[in-house]
């Protein structure tokens, strides 16, 4: 099986891209993503060299912060891409075909970018081999690691199949179901923690799946809109499936966000006052800004440029919503002593923010390089012949 030119860009293309970067002809978006990746790598390096005490604002009171929420965000993006790939192939085959390889590829690189963030959060990354030596099958985190490995293998297999014109429905279905298992397990990682009322819910795995679908729809809509513009395809014909999926995603997100909020507000468990505390944010931001406004924006227009804007809007607001979800569980301390405030506030450090930049820039840079090289068109050229 040919690797260069089919799965990854040709060597000459890669060398040419590097040459363009050096000569200043690479384009603003590639330069911006390279710059973002460089400063992000600087932040990641600082975290590893200087340690958490000097770089990270998480603590015993807020053990999970922006790095975990970024990991969750990119993991959901990846799942969403897999979902869109599945629904696109099943329900909108002809309209979806030009975007399949791009979307699955982005699903792979967002999954990898998620780990960028996760590695900086761990206290002892060098001990990860204990996952193999002394695993704990009772731990949702252990199963998340297992399923994540399976997920990466299957979506890579799906990408290889698409690129080599051997698309298999069985692999596609397997990718879909493994994505469901993986990210519902990620949801259960939070949902099974009975000590944190903000997390503890049977709805959490489903919440993760529905939000993944919405977030993935927004990213894939951006990819599809950019491709339609670049290849001058019929906007209405090719973008209609993505608009439909986005609307479905917004509906599902509204349903699950509303009920999670209502169930939390009705709880009389210790710590459930956090739902009242975050009510205004949950309604104004979590529902109006994150869900209602994008729906109104979709009604206003559906051109390629407008859809890129809507997609970016949803992606940006979802990142904040993920951070609100992860950090929200620590707002009320479980055992308040000494000068602990009644409500804990957490602000990510500049290094934590730059890790987010690193992850996003990695995705952008890899996508731009692969897109420039035409590797996604290799399949189409083979088909024509």
């Amino acid at each position, binding site marked *: 099986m040919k690797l260069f030119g089919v799965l990854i860009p040709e060597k000459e293309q890669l060398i040419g891209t590097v040459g363009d970067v050096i000569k200043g002809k690479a384009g603003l978006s590639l330069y911006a993503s390279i710059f973002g990746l460089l400063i992000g790598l600087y932040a990641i390096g600082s975290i590893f060299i200087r340690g958490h005490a000097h770089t990270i604002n998480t603590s015993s009171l807020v053990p999970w912060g922006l790095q975990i929420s970024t990991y969750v965000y990119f993991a959901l993006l990846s799942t969403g891409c897999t979902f869109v790939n599945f629904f696109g192939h099943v329900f909108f085959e002809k309209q979806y075909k030009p975007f399949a390889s791009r979307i699955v590829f982005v699903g792979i690189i967002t999954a990898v970018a998620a780990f960028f963030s996760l590695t900086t959060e761990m206290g002892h990354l060098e001990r990860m081999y204990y996952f193999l030596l002394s695993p704990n099958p009772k*731990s949702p985190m252990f199963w998340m690691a297992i399923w994540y490995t399976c997920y990466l293998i299957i979506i890579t297999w799906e990408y290889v199949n698409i690129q080599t014109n051997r698309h298999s429905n069985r692999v596609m279905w397997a990718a879909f179901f493994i994505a469901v298992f993986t990210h519902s397990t990620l949801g259960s990682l939070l949902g099974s923690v009975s000590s944190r009322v903000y997390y503890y819910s049977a709805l959490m795995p489903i919440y993760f799946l529905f939000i993944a679908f919405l977030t993935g729809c927004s990213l894939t809509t951006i990819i599809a809109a950019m491709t339609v513009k670049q290849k001058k395809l019929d906007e209405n014909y090719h973008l209609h499936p993505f608009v439909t999926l986005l609307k479905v995603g917004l509906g599902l997100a509204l349903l699950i966000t509303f009920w999670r909020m209502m169930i939390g507000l009705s709880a009389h468990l210790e710590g459930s006052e956090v739902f009242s505390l975050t009510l205004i944010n949950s309604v104004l931001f979590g529902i109006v800004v994150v869900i209602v406004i994008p729906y109104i924006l979709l009604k206003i227009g559906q051109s390629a440029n407008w859809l890129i804007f809507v997609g970016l809007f949803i992606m940006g607001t979802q990142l904040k919503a993920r951070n609100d979800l992860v950090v929200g569980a620590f707002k009320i301390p479980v055992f308040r002593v000494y000068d602990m405030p009644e409500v804990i506030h957490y602000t990510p450090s500049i290094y934590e923010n730059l890790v987010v930049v690193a992850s996003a820039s990695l995705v952008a840079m890899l996508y731009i390089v692969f897109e420039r090289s035409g590797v996604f068109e290799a399949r189409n050229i083979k088909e024509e012949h």
Partner: protein
Amino acid sequence: MDQFDGKDIMEIMQEDLLRALKKPRKERRWAMAIDLKKCIGCHACTTGCMSENLTPPEIHYRPVKEEEIGEYPNTGMRFLPRPCFHCDSPTCTPVCPVTATYKRDDGLVVIDYKKCIGCRYCIVACPYGARSADSGHYFTGDFHDKTYEVENSGEYGGNFKRKSHWHSPIGNARKCHFCIHRVEKGELTRCTTTCLGNATFFGDINDPKALITKLISKPNVFRYKEELGTKPMVYYIT
């Protein structure tokens, strides 16, 4: 010194401890009882624990909660020391992905400092806030020039010096371990010996002759947040 049945409490607990150590480990069940009527909120146990285990800033294995109860003119203060409860049905041990934290056969919930990957899932899972994350802070700032900051505390009988963030216990989860490094040498926990009001009792509740077993069999005993089903092994006497 306080007495029980005419004998000094510390002497009784010391005898109980030595008797328990003669048994196989799996036949022991370590527990603690804290008499809230005697606790004066002096925080000697907190500071004694910090000096015993050389804990860094923001990590307290045994903080003392101070609560004002009642309304003027009928007000009072209540002090609640909170070590790790070494629950019989802990929520922290099932979530550790690498089995770095586990419940021993003598009832102690411990952390293997060499295995802990620092994911902090156990800290999130503990409903009592008994666990802390050691991020690598020092009382003496960047240059941590005081010996006690980097000295080996002997926790778990090991040689863990806080030299850098690449060395445990920095990067790990940390918590009260009932001074296991002292107990296994025949010494009571630091908080038990430091307590000014003799409010803390420690022993083996599998021993019917132990002082702690007699104390917790009374009706005026409760466990913190018992409704969670965690079966804590720290009892409060009211």
